[in-house]
């Protein structure tokens, strides 16, 4: 089997075993995703470039901490999440990670099990709505929303990426949908003078 046909986890294992040149395959597979992910979370284009570079450098340096039984994409997004937080701290932006959050402390009941979205139509509709509203949503809601609807992760995977309780991921996504609904209604009102 050609290296290009191998799964991410298999390539990561080969890189761990010393075939470091194969790391470029992983970079090629994820650079666009990482760039758009960082662009959604950060505002400064220069930051995005640096952050993406840092994400892959960290991924290379910490490659041996990757457990091939886990999903490579979740592991890489975890690094990305940390690098984005670092970029926030560097820019002294507050709000991304509050010191204490009741959402993390208290249990929440979830109406769904947080599996990946199987309905393409729902995902496409949501992607359109999110692209209109994302910049107007609070930072702490933005990331789980993007990871679920735009990157296609399940609640459990998002919990692993953000180190949050699964129910917190669910409640943040639920709230962000309510915020988006409110934004759209307001937009509709401004455009037509009344909600549809």
């Amino acid at each position, binding site marked *: 089997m050609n290296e290009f046909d191998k799964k991410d986890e298999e390539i990561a294992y080969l890189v761990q075993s010393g075939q470091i*040149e194969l790391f470029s395959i992983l970079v090629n597979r994820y650079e*666009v995703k990482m760039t758009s992910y960082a662009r959604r979370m950060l505002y400064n284009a220069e930051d995005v470039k640096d952050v993406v*570079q840092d994400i*892959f450098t960290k991924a290379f*340096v*910490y490659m041996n901490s990757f457990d091939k039984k886990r999903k490579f994409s979740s592991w890489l997004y975890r690094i990305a999440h940390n690098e984005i937080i670092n970029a926030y701290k560097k820019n002294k932006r507050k709000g991304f990670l509050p010191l204490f959050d009741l959402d993390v*402390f208290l*249990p929440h009941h979830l109406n769904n099990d947080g599996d990946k979205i199987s309905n393409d139509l729902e995902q496409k509709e949501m992607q359109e709505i999110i692209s209109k509203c994302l910049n107007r949503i609070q930072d702490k809601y933005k990331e789980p929303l993007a990871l679920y609807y735009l990157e296609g992760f399940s609640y459990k995977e998002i919990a692993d990426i953000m180190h949050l309780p699964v129910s917190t991921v669910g409640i943040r996504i639920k709230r962000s949908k309510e915020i988006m609904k409110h934004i759209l209604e307001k937009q509709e009102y401004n455009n037509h003078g009344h909600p549809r």
Partner: protein
Amino acid sequence: MDTQDKQNSISEKILAKAREGQIKMKPRAYFIFKTALFVLGILVLLLSIIYIASFAIFSLRASGAWFLPRFGFLGIRNLFGALPWLLILLSAVLIVMLELFAEKFSFIYKKPMMYSLAGIILIVIIASFILSNTPLHTKLFDRAKEGRLPLIGALYSKYGIPKSQNIHHGFVLEVQENAVVMENLRGEKLKIIFDNASIGDDISIGDAVVVIGQRNASVVSATAIIKIDKDDFFLLKRGLTKPPLR
């Protein structure tokens, strides 16, 4: 520069740095060692919290404050001022630190923080109660008194039996008409005078008692007195004054 070139440039930059030795892939042993150190740190922190909490219980028992709820409202009012707040605050800070460290593990962070925090507090309470029921603290206190306990000796000398103006804990040496003479855990003899409270018929020589009342030199004007379980008291007394009897 098209997208393909950009992609190549990032991976090429990283690989070039790797070839030149500017960046290195950290070995697996580094992560194993780091995890082991982290787990060890968590264990040390947990044991420290259990030790401090059990020391707080020991200190409460030795001061007599442990038995104050038995006095009813009066005891509870006095208990608030007699609690070892410094030890409680220290335990609380360390518990929060432990929770934050434990949040690194997926089985902890995937559940709401309330559960893990409650779990840690429950473990600390149970373990510290168990530890406080062993002769560990009384033996350490004894060693501290003899100057044979380096480092933590000061902790026992300073906080082991907190001095209180209102709460007195000891055993009865003599029963008089309106007073009793008792010896406290520091070996001081105190005369307990009852102006407004009756001694009661059930207090006799050798009883372990806790008294609420204002102390003036070696005289205490008692407001209330209760007899406590001798086992509790003598377990402390044995360890505090002489080597265990058996």
